[in-house]
């Protein structure tokens, strides 16, 4: 059975012309799941609309 993220991985792989061999897929999927889980933590945090990003950070 296809994993939920597999279609997404295929689509982005194609869009970025970034090869993902079948043998790598489970590890790529596992890493992506971690990234998205941590990304959700960031996503869930409400920030004011005016918040500036920090592309060149000044401490």
């Amino acid at each position, binding site marked *: 059975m296809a994993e939920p993220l597999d279609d997404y991985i295929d689509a982005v792989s194609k869009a970025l012309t970034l090869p*993902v061999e079948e043998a790598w897929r489970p590890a790529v999927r596992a*890493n992506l799941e971690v990234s998205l889980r941590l*990304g959700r933590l*960031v996503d869930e945090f409400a920030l004011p609309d005016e918040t500036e*990003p920090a592309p060149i950070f000044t401490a």
Partner: protein
Amino acid sequence: MTAKPEMTASEIASAVARGKMSALDATEAALARIKQHDGVFNSFTDLTDDRARAKARAVDADIAAGKTVGPLAGVPFAVKNLFDVAGLPTRAGSKINRDLAPSKRDATLIERMEAAGAVLVGALNMGEYAYDFTGENVHDGPSRNPHDTTRMAGGSSGGSGSAVGGALVPIALGSDTNGSIRVPSSFCGIFGLKPTYGRLSRARTFPFVASLDHLGPFARSVTDLALAYDAMQGPDADDGACTTRGLEPTLPLLANPVSDLRIAIAGGHFQKNVFPEAVEAVSRVAKALGATRVVDVPEASRARAAAYVITTTEGASLHLDRLRKRPNDFDPAVRDRLIAGAMVPAPLVDRAQKFRRWYRAQFAEIFKSVDVLIAPATPCTAPKLGQVNFNLDGVELPVRANIGIHTQPISFIGLPVVAVPVPLEPLPIGVQIIAAPWREDIALRVAHALEKMGVVAAPSPKGF
């Protein structure tokens, strides 16, 4: 006077400047020790013998001619192999970069160390492209822990930790994006300084995550750390993130008292996910400093998550073309993480950068009533090489991703940190001394006080 293995940089420089020892003797002693022991430590990937001898002779010639020499005269040092070294391809722990043309010019920090009289003896092993906390490398083999060679040196600056922990050189340079100076310092039982983001130039070093990359020194004493750090400070137009602040020397301030400083223990996230040895280390440091106040750092776990997102996506962006053209030449574990990073939706990255601003403001509030925060550098002492999981707070977690759990929320906003080694038996472990932005002087001063009290010290590598 002959060079002894654990002579500090300041002892060597003093002996050389006073004509008690030649720079060439100090250099030959380091080269001999590297050749004797590095077959086990595996910390060096390149030796620059000829260059080192030429530099040492030049220092000795200056002394013979009565010229003033720098504060690091004749001090051997080595650099993580992501620093450009003239004549070497900058491999950055990879197989792919070995095909690069040899560098034409040294990294700025090497130039500054050598301008102070130091002698570059080689380049050091590291985790591939710095995406690593273990010090393991599939191409070059693992850097080994000098206190137990079956254990990790920590990463990604594993060779830097191993070489200084093993007393092969008194000073090494490394990089820290999420903990890569502080983790090897902790595992190898040495001092490491991750300065404020933007303080030291990164010019002519191979990048990883431009938003988070820092460079800094490792040493066996706080004085040596300050010596190297002071020698490397200063603006540099070749690094767009480098500060324009003038030099702010720390060495003259090291011995100032710490009794006027407001020192607190970082709570919340920093008191969770720790093994007993990390608790013991923080407790010893806090007790010595009389620190009892615990300050909660809001949203530190989320800060770690945001650092993770920025790291994986900027890393993926950096390596995108190499992932397309030479995927099989990467460490498979690094490749698969980077490919996944390329697939993270852009809004999450933007939100992570915005969250960084918010989190920085929380620390600005904390630093209104606190000068120094104490936190673990790693959750545990050095794991076994190849160890995959550990049990953290009752949860089985991957070692590799979680070693930096306490360092990431700090480098995320670029705070200066000195990692100090608590010499527990059988293995040392580090504690982070965290100061407000641009106050490296305070972190170093506290580290120096702890060193004087005998609470922190770089243990001798037994059997070497």
